[in-house]
């Protein structure tokens, strides 16, 4: 899932300065799970924004709230069309994808982000998420026992470890585990230690240029 973190209220307030009819649009998927931009967080942000503006300038502003299932598909945005167009500005608490998609959809109404999109990650429990995938476009997890050397290795080495691995810890950040130590141990557990001998060729960065675009093979036209 995409992991995001809410922006501070001062930053959000500045982005909608001068606007008096604001709509906060939340997303019910990834950002709701990581407690950054779902329905509850939209409600919190709405209260905080009204309070912040009132404390700052004594002004009362209108802040409406909606939360849609996702902000990256038109079918989920269209039912909220009337509310979206009936405001001076939209604060989207979706990830960067949702903010941009909504901005494209609305066109002439400013859409600003309410969260910072951080990474693709998984839930460790207890309100903690960790990065797991860099969307590099050439997945090697089948060879590395399910541990991503691009993401977990600080140097993204495909043929690690480097010379700096130290008792299973990384020389770049001693609080982090050495990815290749983890990979070795996992392959050992899986009885697939031979995989460690495989040499990956230099990464083909052309496999994933930015901005990327993908058409499913079933939809490709000849």
């Amino acid at each position, binding site marked *: 899932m995409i992991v995001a973190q809410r922006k*501070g*209220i*001062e930053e959000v307030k500045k982005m909608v300065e001068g606007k008096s009819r604001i709509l906060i649009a939340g997303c019910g998927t990834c950002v*709701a*799970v990581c*407690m950054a931009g*779902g*329905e*509850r967080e939209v*409600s*919190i942000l709405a*209260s*905080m924004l*009204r*309070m*912040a503006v*009132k*404390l700052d300038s004594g002004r009362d502003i209108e802040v409406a709230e909606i939360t849609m299932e996702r902000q990256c598909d038109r079918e989920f945005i269209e039912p909220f069309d009337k509310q979206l167009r009936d405001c001076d500005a939209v604060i989207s608490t979706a990830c960067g994808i949702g903010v941009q998609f909504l901005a494209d959809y609305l066109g002439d109404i400013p859409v600003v982000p309410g969260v910072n999109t951080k990474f693709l990650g998984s*839930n*460790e*429990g*207890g*309100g*903690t998420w960790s990065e797991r995938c860099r969307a590099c476009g050439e997945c090697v997890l089948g060879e590395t026992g399910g541990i991503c050397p691009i993401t977990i290795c600080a140097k993204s080495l495909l043929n690690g470890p480097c010379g700096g691995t130290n008792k299973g810890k990384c020389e770049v950040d001693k609080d982090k585990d050495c990815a290749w130590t983890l990979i070795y141990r996992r392959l050992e557990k899986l009885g697939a230690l031979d995989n460690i001998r495989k040499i990956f060729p230099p990464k083909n960065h052309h496999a994933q240029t930015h901005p990327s675009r993908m058409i499913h093979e079933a939809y490709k036209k000849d």
Partner: protein
Amino acid sequence: MKKFEPTVVVFSCMFCAQPAPAGSRLRLISLHCLGKLDARHVLKALENGADAVLVAGGITSQCRFIEGLAAAQKKIEYARTLLSELGIEPERLELVAAGRSIAEAAAELTERVRALGPNPLGKKKKAAKKLTAVSRSAQSSTLRLRPEGSSRSRD
């Protein structure tokens, strides 16, 4: 000059908290479980004119719904950071637990808030109606218990 009498909203666990006497400035909202309480309820109470919020629970090890009080404690700490971020004194939000009397805690909080002064947001018109709305939201019958070890939480 009229003496400032703080309006205190009390979110109270109906099973575990010690009963509180009715007070003209205490707005009591009884919850099935404090785990239902969220930072947004605290913010709404203050936004709608409360001078302080008191959250009343029981003893963590005796929580009827196991994790309710523990969950509430985390959310209260979070609500305090949000209040600080807004420039509102986090001391306006208090948790009383472990069998302490709500009446005593409310009296202490009231004294403290008298020193802090009225809610910097001022009183809203129709504050009573809005506090009723907060009460309804916090008391809605949807109560979801999280499986142990799950960090996903939604009201």
